């Protein structure tokens, strides 16, 4: 019965993974469980955004004009140029996070820290950009309680910004944990989860950017 473990030759990555996994089967099993749990968490988080995106689309489609009027004043469109610039910052942070994880896998600690810090800085940069964006939108007369446009915009980008903020804190904690030697070359689930989370935040932003600035 013990022969059920595959003996066929494995290629490339799989061989490396199998070598690590054989070292510690308890870790291998808990890793796959935690990974699935984390993916499900991200999927359920998608539903949270999905519900508010549905609300936004519903309100926008059923509105007689968009942007809507508040009193006699027609609200302005959002500023696409700046948001595009800010998006590039966020997507850039996705790229740097990718490099950070790859460097960890290849045991380049120093490069990992550099890329991670770059990611954190870009994330903070995006948040600053969002703060600037919000003040601009507010100055244009779009407020949170004032209109459905403001309600959808501030709720959704606020939720997203909160996710980015949590992500920045999360990545910082991961960096400190890595420094304390919690992760090794074969056991780094926390870093994988952090990277997944950060990419998730990117993907959500793609959707939000399209809905608010392109549509």
């Amino acid at each position: 019965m013990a022969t059920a473990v595959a003996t066929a030759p494995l290629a490339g990555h799989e061989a490396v993974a199998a070598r690590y996994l054989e070292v510690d089967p308890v870790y291998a099993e808990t890793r796959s469980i935690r990974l699935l749990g984390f993916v499900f968490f991200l999927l359920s988080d998608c539903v949270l955004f999905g519900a508010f995106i549905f609300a936004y689309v519903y309100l926008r489609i059923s509105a007689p004009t968009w942007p809507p009027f508040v009193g006699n004043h027609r609200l302005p469109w959002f500023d696409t140029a700046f948001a595009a610039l800010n998006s590039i910052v966020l997507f850039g942070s996705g790229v740097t996070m990718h490099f950070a994880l790859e460097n960890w896998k290849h045991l380049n600690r120093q490069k990992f820290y550099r890329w991670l810090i770059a990611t954190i800085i870009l994330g903070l940069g995006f948040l600053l950009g969002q703060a600037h964006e919000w003040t601009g939108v507010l100055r244009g007369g779009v407020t949170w309680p004032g209109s459905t446009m403001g309600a959808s915009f501030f709720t959704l980008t606020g939720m997203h910004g909160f996710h980015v903020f949590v992500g920045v804190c999360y990545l910082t904690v991961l960096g400190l944990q890595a420094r304390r030697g919690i992760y090794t070359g074969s056991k780094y689930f926390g870093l994988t989860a952090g990277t997944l989370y950060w990419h998730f935040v990117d993907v959500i932003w793609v959707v939000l950017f399209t809905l608010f600035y392109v549509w």
Partner: protein
Amino acid sequence: MEAGTTAPHVGHDPHDHIHPPPEGFIRKYVFSLDHKVIAFQYFITGLLFMLIAGSFAELIRLQLWEPNGAIMSHNAYDTMFTIHGTAMVWLVVIPLVTGALGNFVMPLQIGARDVAFPWLNMLSFWILPVAGLTLFSTFLAGGAHAGWTEYPPISLADGTAGALWCAAIFLVGISSTITGLNFMVTIIKMRAPGMTWTRMPLFIWASFATAFMNMFATVALSSALFALFLEHVFNVPFFDANRGGSAVLYEHMFWFYSHPAVYIFILPAFGVISEILPVFARKPIFGYKMIAFSSLAIAILSFAVWAHHMFPSGISPWLQLTFMIITYAIGVPTGIKVFSWIATLWAGRIHFTTAMLYAMGFLITFTFGGITGIFLASVPADFHEHGTYFVVAHFHYVVAGGALMGFLAAIPYWYPKATGRLMSERMGRWSFWLFFIGFNATFFPMHWLGLEGMPRRYASYVAFATGNPDAVFWNQFETVFSFLMVVSIGLLAWNMIWSIRHGKPAGINPWGARTLEWTISSPPPYYNFRKIPIVYDRPYDFDKPLPYRNLDNDIDAYPEPSPVLLRQEPVRAGA
């Protein structure tokens, strides 16, 4: 057996690793990580909330004794039905069927030592009492009045109480989502070796479908309530028509969760029935695959039927048509299940234990509730029935006659596994018949009261009673019989307490059942399985030896019901 080839290796395996038992009262019973203790915590909390929500139900029935309202003001009545509905849905039924039943049975049935994330499991339980206290604290803020659906704009008039209501149910939503996620991962990743998808017990299929809905739909509920909360507290105009919002939007967001929620209630009950019927009919479940896949079909379709709650609420005619058709489609898998259960009874050797009585009662009441569902799914008929007592009757047949009845069937079946003592069959039979008669007499007349013109959520029904003089009689009839259910639940509670001291020892497998939880001692050890069993086949083939290897205990190859249960030796209360 061809299954032998798929059995995985044993030895040098994470499965050999057992954690030491927890020590100290707090670790063992309060902040326990053990799924069985958490299940008991859910059970007790759920029953306490049921006591409160159930007494509100009786106050509602007493109020309707007279057309003018017998005992309380309209204002008080509105808070009663609001909190009755809210608490029953979110603090009673969902915690009981997923939290208590799912937590206790699911890991045992898949041969796991615990759920995937025990710490999250503990967290999702402890959110529940906090949510409950938040919900009941609405009374201190003037009470929530808008019904369990909490439609704006009327719910916005409740002010602080409404905001607290949102916060409470938001918390329950978080708890429920975490449980769903936890159960999904557990079922996907932690089944015993050899337990392929099509060898899983049907309760696990049902739990899996439930967990799927819990994980995805509940977040939508949390979003709806978050938006409503923002409107309460920060005046954000999602639902305010004066500022471009839409009250119908809330209904969409709310029902996108709350229709799957109905299946979150009922699917675990389906699973319970699929377990109990074969055991007490002493024959394999009929149509295993059809029952299993229909659970999944229901779970998926349930996401596409929500707007049938909103036919007269202001959605486009074409949406009405679409949702009517999908709703009719969901009737087909449900029908397949019911027919398969009846075929399971055919040519069985039926043992009338308490659990079996409840299961057969379930078949009748649930089928009736399902059929009235077909009436409500038809758009034109719904234009008449919507918002009346017909709807009240329908969903009580489905939720109380379906989900709760399934849960009541599960209590005498699995409670002995948890305590090691059998419950009294005699008291059990009494509590079944009291419940069955009380339930039907309470809710059956509501069908015609509704059709004749009695709207729901009426604190008084003077105008209706003037036109229909027998309305008063039927309302009083319902009130009287509703107390039979109180007696029944009281008897059940007493039976549970009584059995811990006086019940006969249950032994490992009192029912002659074949799923994995009946191969370990009662109550199960904290680690459940010392050796992780290996599974070779489905647990329903009564003509074949048990399909397990590597069991902790020496089990008969063909399990038989314990002699104390057979008719010639009736178990008497106090005997």
